[in-house]
């Protein structure tokens, strides 16, 4: 009888945690979802702030490097000198104009734009890769903390 009682008493503490384990898991999950949402809510203004800074800079950088009055003047001066040089060398005006048009066609401004775009994309991708690397490092650290 004593043995039975002692067995019952000894089993009780083992059973209680089993019955309690489900609600604590649900509560933990709820808590983690809430925390995740809180994290998103906190990170979102930062993300918008970064985009607000980055996109106007990207556009002004892209345009400023090729289409600023200085850059335009230099480019046009190059083309003009090419044309005036041809005329000075005694080439007929029609032929000189034709050659200048071909020279401008070879410059291909859309290619120039895409080249500048590629440069900015390289800058952006390196920044993104660095950020990704940092994020993955943080994630690993979090994982380590969880496992510990």
């Amino acid at each position: 009888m004593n043995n039975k009682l002692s067995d019952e008493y000894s089993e009780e503490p083992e059973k209680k945690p089993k019955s309690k384990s489900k609600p604590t898991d649900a509560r933990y999950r709820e808590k983690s979802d809430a925390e995740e949402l809180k994290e998103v809510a906190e990170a979102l203004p930062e993300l918008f702030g970064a985009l607000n800074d980055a996109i106007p800079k990207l556009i002004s950088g892209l345009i400023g490097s090729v289409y600023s009055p200085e850059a335009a003047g230099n480019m046009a001066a190059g083309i003009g000198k090419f044309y005036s040089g041809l005329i000075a060398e005694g080439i007929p005006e029609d032929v000189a104009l034709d050659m200048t048009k071909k020279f401008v066609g070879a410059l291909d401004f859309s290619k120039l734009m895409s080249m500048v775009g590629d440069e900015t994309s390289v800058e952006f991708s390196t920044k993104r890769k660095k950020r990704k690397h940092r994020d993955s490092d943080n994630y690993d650290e979090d994982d380590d903390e969880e496992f510990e």
Partner: protein
Amino acid sequence: MGTARSIASITGTAIGGGSKLLFKVWWSLRKGRAEVKKGAKTFYKTLRENGVPEEEAKQIAVSYAQPAWDVLSIRGIFRLVRELDEDNEIPMMPFGI
């Protein structure tokens, strides 16, 4: 309660931040177009100063400004962003691109 507050905060930030972002992009597009116009004018003037005939100078200045004019629109910016997004991480379906 905390979850509801977080959802409300996310929604509010998305609406407010998205509107601000859209305005800033539109404003920088406007400024960019003005810059391209100025650049094209300088380009044309310099060509004329170097003796290039009026009609040809106009054609060359237009061909110079055209690529930037194509990029400086909302669709052009989305195209640019898609080109920058090498890993195709940004879904472009909602924008119909």
